[in-house]
């Protein structure tokens, strides 16, 4: 495992743990779901997330990785 893979693994593990911590915090911490739903409350926020989603799809599935 090279340095890059090690850092990505640590980031992924830390993110997964943090998501679990926020989920079990009884709404004292902002969860991934609450952040997403906060954006989806208006057209502007929804458009920002949909633009990011579209760009991600094009980048991952239609461009050289």
């Amino acid at each position, binding site marked *: 495992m090279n340095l*890059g893979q090690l850092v990505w693994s640590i980031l992924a593990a830390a993110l997964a743990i943090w998501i679990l911590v926020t989920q079990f915090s009884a709404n004292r911490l*902002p969860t991934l779901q609450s952040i997403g739903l906060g954006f989806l409350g208006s*057209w502007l926020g929804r458009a920002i997330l949909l633009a990011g989603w*579209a760009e991600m*799809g094009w980048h*991952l599935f239609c461009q050289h990785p």
Partner: protein
Amino acid sequence: MGRRGLSHPRRGNNRGWRFGYIAVPIGLGFAWWEGYHPWPSLAAHVSILTVIVIMISLAAIMGRGRQVYSSHAWLCRVVAGLRHPLQRSFVFLVGSLIWVAFVMAIVGWDLLSFLREVPALPTLSYLIGRVTRFAAGRSILVALWLALGGFLALARRSSEHERAGFRSWIPGANRDAGRTS
């Protein structure tokens, strides 16, 4: 006040379930088919672009007049939250900062890996590409991407009751009643 927004909640849920019964098999079938069309193919480009257009159209059609806040009100709430962060609890504030740190760490490390261009520092796209080069991996990631898109297009569409409740505590919001852009 439109009748659509006052329909019984269970009736709306039944409509949603019927939509799901149709959309989920179509989405899974598409993801399976997409798995066999790697990134350089024209079919992959056309199909992904078509999905993007369909999802944005779906969001526009299903969400028309059903956003909880107007964009202006939402932006004001965001700016107010940034200008007065101490109005929230200390724990919430720390949690928000940790989320920001995660985003900055992921974007920063990806940018560094992209700029260095050495095999020891693969970008996130490169690592995901090692999964999408296989049909099964590509199909699974396309299915997850479709599910996320469906959530972003359809989630949190408000009822007329919710919008009326929101307008009742925003000064002057009744002047903009019905405007959601």
